[in-house]
C-alpha cells in the first residue's frame, strides 16, 4: 500500500545491488566467505583484534567486532560483520565504501536507529567508555542529539516542511529538557549565526522550503550542534550538494570540529572528500572493514586491492585534452544559436507572475564524433538546455540546427521522424526504466513504434545488450533484477537502438558509485569511438566532464560563461566563475595527484574493474 520505512528500503536496495554484483558467484561465495574474510582481516586489518575492551582516554567512540544481521532471505546474512575501529577525540574519521558496503548501517547502529528487522548480533559500541549495544531504548534516546548527533545526505527531505527552522532547532533542546523557551530561542539564533546563515533573526522564522540545499544542510548542522555533542556523525552530508556548496559545507564542518574539538565520523563514497577532510580512514567493502589507517597512509599507499581500486576509480581532472577518434569527416551535427527559454509561473492577469530565464542566449556547435560537456551547478539551466535540444520542451527563441535543419520551430508531428536520431540517457537508472516491462520490451518498443520489424528489433536489442556488457539473458529480465550500473547500461542500449546521431546524457553517471561511474564513462567513450555518435554530456561534476569531453561549456544562470577544451577550463580558466568551480573540487590539488586515475582506451591502458 505504501513504501516501507526509509531505512528498510535503503538496505533492501543495497542488498539488491549487492546481489547483482555478486551474480552467479553467490553459491560459491557463501561457502568460502568465512575463510576469505578471516584471511583478509589478518592481512589487512591490523587493528581488528587484540585491543583491550576498555578504550583509552583519547578515544571518543570505539566500535569492537560489531556484527549486524539482516533478516532471513536476504542475499547476505550480515549487513556488517566484525567491524572494529576507533574514533579519536578531536579527529575526523572517514568511513568510505560503495553503496551496500554497510557504512550507513554502521552509523545507524551507533545512533541506535536501526530498523527493527536489523539487529546488532554481537560486538560492542563504546561511547565514552560505556557499551551502548543493548542499552534500553529510553537511555539510547537520551544519548541521541545530546552526546551523538547525526546529519544526513539529503537536506531537502531531512527537515519537516511544516515547522519553522527555529522550532526544529529548539526541538533538540526541548527533547532533552534543556533551557527555558527564551534561552532556547537565543541559543537557536546563536547557532544560526555559528553555521554562517545570513540574517538569523529572519531565518529563525523561515520554513525549510524557502532555503537552498546548502542552507538547509547548515540548519541540519546547527541542529546537530545545539547540545554540543562529543560526536557528530555525518552520513554523506555533501553528496546531494553542488560542488561549490559542498566545498563550503566541508569547510564549515572542518571549522566547527576544530573550534569545538569535536570528533566527527564522516561517511562518504568520494575519495576526493576524504583527501579534503579526513584524519583517519576506514575502508569498507560488503560489510567488512578491509583497511584502515591515517588519511595520508591510506591515500598514498593503499594496502588493500579494493582501496586501490576505489582510489583509481575516482575521476580526476586530467588537464589533458581527449585524443579525438580517428579523423573521419567532421560534419556539423548540431549548431545552436541564441537559444532561449524563460519559465513563467503564476498568472499575468493578477500580476503574480514570476519569470525565470532558464536558458538565456546559448550558442554552441558540435561536430560528429565529438563530446561537448555542459557543466554547471543546479539551477544553471543545463538540464533545461538538454530538454530543449531533444524538444521535450518548446524554446522561446533562437535556433537549433540539427544536421543543417532548424528543428527549433518544428511541431511535434514534424519532429517525430527525427526523434530516433537524437536520444537521451537519463540520470536516475532506478526511475527511468519501467519496472513492469522486461528489458527486451524496453529496448524494442521504441524502434517498433517507428516501424522496425519486431524480429529485427529483438536481434538488435540482443546485440546491443552484449555490446554494453550485459549477458544475453538480460533480455528476458526485469529492471529490478539489475544493479544501478547495469540499469544504466540498459539505458544506454535503449538509446542506441535507433542508431542515433546525437546522444544527450543528462547526469548519466551522477547516481552511480565511483567505480561503476568509471566503467560507464569508459563504455560511453568506447561507443563513441565505434559509432561516431556525437554526445552532449550534462554534468555537475567537473572531474567527470574532464574525463570524457572534447570541449566543455560552463553554464551559469542560463548562460555559457566559458567554453573551451578541458585543458583551458581546468588549468587556465578565463572566467571567475569557472575558477571558483574548479577551486571547489574536493581533493584536487592540481597536477599533484599521481597518474593512477586515468582510464579510457585512448588515454593509454586504463584500469579495468
Amino acid at each position, binding site marked *: 500500500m505504501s*513504501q516501507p520505512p526509509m531505512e528498510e528500503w535503503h538496505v533492501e536496495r543495497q542488498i539488491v545491488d549487492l546481489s547483482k554484483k555478486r551474480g552467479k558467484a553467490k553459491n560459491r561465495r557463501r561457502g568460502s566467505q568465512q575463510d576469505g574474510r578471516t584471511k583478509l582481516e589478518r592481512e589487512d586489518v591490523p587493528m581488528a583484534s587484540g585491543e583491550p575492551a576498555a578504550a583509552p582516554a583519547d578515544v571518543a567512540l570505539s566500535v569492537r567486532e560489531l556484527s549486524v544481521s539482516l533478516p532471513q532471505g536476504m542475499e547476505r546474512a550480515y549487513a556488517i560483520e566484525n567491524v572494529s575501529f576507533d574514533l579519536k577525540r578531536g579527529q575526523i574519521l572517514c568511513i568510505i565504501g560503495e553503496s551496500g558496503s554497510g557504512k550507513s548501517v554502521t552509523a545507524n547502529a551507533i*545512533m541506535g*536507529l536501526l530498523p527493527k528487522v536489523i539487529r546488532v548480533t554481537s560486538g560492542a559500541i563504546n561511547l565514552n567508555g560505556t557499551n551502548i549495544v543493548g542499552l534500553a531504548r529510553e537511555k539510547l534516546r537520551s544519548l*541521541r542529539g545530546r552526546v551523538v548527533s547525526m546529519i544526513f545526505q539529503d537536506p531537502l527531505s531531512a527537515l519537516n516542511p*511544516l515547522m519553522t527552522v527555529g522550532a526544529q532547532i529548539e526541538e533538540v533542546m526541548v527533547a532533552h529538557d534543556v533551557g527555558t523557551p527564551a534561552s532556547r530561542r537565543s541559543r537557536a539564533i546563536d547557532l544560526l549565526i555559528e553555521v554562517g546563515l545570513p540574517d538569523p533573526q529572519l531565518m529563525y522564522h523561515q*520554513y525549510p522550503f524557502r532555503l537552498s540545499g546548502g542552507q538547509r544542510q547548515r540548519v541540519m548542522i546547527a541542529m546537530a550542534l545545539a547540545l554540543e555533542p562529543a560526536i557528530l556523525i555525518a552520513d554523506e552530508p555533501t553528496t546531494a550538494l553542488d560542488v561549490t556548496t559542498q566545498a563550503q559545507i566541508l569547510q564549515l564542518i572542518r571549522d566547527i570540529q576544530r573550534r569545538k574539538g569535536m570528533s566527527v565520523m564522516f561517511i562518504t563514497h568520494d575519495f576526493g572528500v576524504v583527501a579534503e577532510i579526513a584524519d583517519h580512514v576506514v575502508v569498507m567493502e560488503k560489510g567488512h572493514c578491509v583497511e584502515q589507517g591515517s588519511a595520508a597512509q591510506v591515500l598514498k599507499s593503499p594496502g588493500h586491492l579494493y582501496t586501490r581500486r576505489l582510489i583509481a576509480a575516482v575521476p580526476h581532472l586530467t588537464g589533458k585534452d581527449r585524443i579525438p577518434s580517428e579523423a573521419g569527416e567532421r560534419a556539423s551535427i548540431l549548431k545552436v544559436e541564441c537559444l532561449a527559454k524563460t519559465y513563467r509561473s503564476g498568472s499575468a492577469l493578477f500580476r*503574480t507572475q514570476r519569470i525565470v530565464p532558464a536558458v538565456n542566449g546559448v550558442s554552441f556547435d558540435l561536430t560528429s564524433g565529438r563530446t561537448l560537456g555542459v557543466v554547471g551547478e543546479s539551477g544553471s539551466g543545463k538540464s533545461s538546455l538538454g530538454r530543449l535540444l531533444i524538444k521535450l520542451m518548446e524554446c522561446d527563441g533562437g535556433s537549433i540546427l540539427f544536421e543543417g535543419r532548424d528543428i527549433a520551430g518544428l511541431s511535434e508531428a514534424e519532429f517525430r521522424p527525427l526523434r530516433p536520431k537524437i536520444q537521451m540517457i537519463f540520470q536516475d537508472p532506478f526511475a527511468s526504466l519501467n519496472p513492469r516491462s522486461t528489458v527486451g520490451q524496453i529496448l524494442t518498443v521504441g524502434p517498433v513504434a517507428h516501424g522496425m520489424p519486431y524480429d529485427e528489433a529483438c536481434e538488435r536489442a540482443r546485440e546491443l545488450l552484449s555490446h554494453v556488457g550485459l549477458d544475453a539473458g538480460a533480455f528476458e529480465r526485469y529492471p529490478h533484477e539489475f544493479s544501478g550500473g547495469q540499469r544504466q547500461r540498459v539505458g544506454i542500449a535503449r538509446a542506441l537502438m535507433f542508431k542515433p546521431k546525437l546522444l544527450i546524457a543528462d547526469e548519466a553517471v551522477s547516481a552511480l558509485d565511483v567505480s561503476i561511474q568509471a566503467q560507464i564513462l569508459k563504455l560511453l567513450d568506447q561507443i563513441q569511438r565505434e559509432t561516431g555518435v556525437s554526445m552532449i554530456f550534462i554534468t555537475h561534476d567537473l572531474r567527470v566532464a574532464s574525463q570524457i569531453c572534447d570541449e566543455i561549456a560552463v553554464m551559469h544562470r542560463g548562460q555559457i560563461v566559458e567554453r573551451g577544451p578541458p585543458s583551458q577550463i581546468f588549468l587556465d580558466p578565463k572566467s571567475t566563475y569557472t575558477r571558483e568551480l574548479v577551486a571547489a573540487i574536493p581533493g584536487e590539488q592540481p597536477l599533484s595527484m599521481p597518474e593512477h586515475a586515468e582510464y579510457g582506451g585512448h588515454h593509454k591502458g586504463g584500469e579495468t574493474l
Partner: protein
Amino acid sequence: MSAFLLNRLLQSIVLLVIVSIIGFTVLNLMPGGPLAQFGLDPGMTQKDVERLAAQLGLNRPLWMQYLDWAWRLLQGDWGHSFRDGSSVLTVIGRHLLATLLLMGTSTAFAIGVGAWIGIRGATHRYSLFDYCATVGAMVALSVPTFWFGLIGIYIFTLKLGWVPAGNMYTIGDGSILDYLHHLILPSLVLSLVHVAIWSRYMRTATLDALSQDFVKTARAKGVSERRILLKHVIGNALLPMITLAGMQLPSILTGALVTETVFTWPGMGRLFLDSLGYSDYPVVMGLLIFSAILVLLGNLIADIVIATVDPRIRLA
C-alpha cells in the same frame, strides 16, 4: 491569495452553469415528465393537462424554460414544488436539519475513529490490530450499506429491541434523548463505510509520513516516539486528508440515499428520491444546484485550509 480566490470563484460559476444545463437537459429528456401522471387520471381531460402545462410554462421550448429558471434562480427564486406548491428552499430547509444531524454525527464519528485506526495501524504495522483493521475495512467496503442496515434492524430492533427501526423521533415524544435513540443505528451503519475509507487513507498517509527523512532526523535528535508522532507525523499525514474531508462535506448536507430510505429518515436523500418519483422537477433541480454548490464549496474550503496549514503553499 485574493487572486487565487477570485480565480476559483470564476471557475466555479462556469462549472455551475455547465452542471445546471446538463442537469436540466437530462431531466427533461426523461420519458414521461411532470404531467405524465395526469394522463391516466380519468378526472383530467387532455385539455386540462394542456392548461396545466401552459400554467406551469411547460409548453415552451426547453431552452426558454431553462433561461427562465436560471434567471429566477439568479434573483433568488428557486421555484416552487409541483407537489405542494411550497417554495423549493422551504422544502430543502425542512429536510436539511434531519440530514445534518445524521450525517454530521456519522461523519464526525467516522473521521475520528477512522483516523485513530489508521494511525495505530501504521505505527503498529503488521500487528494483529493492523490485520483486523485491514480485513474489517475490506468487509465494510464490499458489503452494501442497505444490507448492514437491514441486519442492524433485524438484530438490534427485532431480536434485542434496543433501538427503534426507523424515523427520527417518536410521534408525541420528541425529546433530545428520543432523537438520540433514533440516531444511533442509522449513524453507525452509515459510518461503517466511512470509517473504512478514512482508516485506509490515514494508514497510507501515516506510513508515508513515517518513512520521510525528517522523521529520521527527529529520531536522531533524541525526540521521543510520542512527540515524533504528534509533532512530525500526524501533521504531515493529515495534509492529504484535508482534500478528502473537503470531498465529504457536500455529502453531509445532501444526505445518504440508501440509509435514509432504509431507516425512513426524513432527510435530503429521501427528498431527492421522492421528488424524482413524483417528477417534481423544480425540487430535483434545486437539489442538484444545491449539491453542486456544496461540492465546489467543499473543494474550495479544502484548498483554503491546506493553504493555511502548509507554509509551502501559503507563501509560495
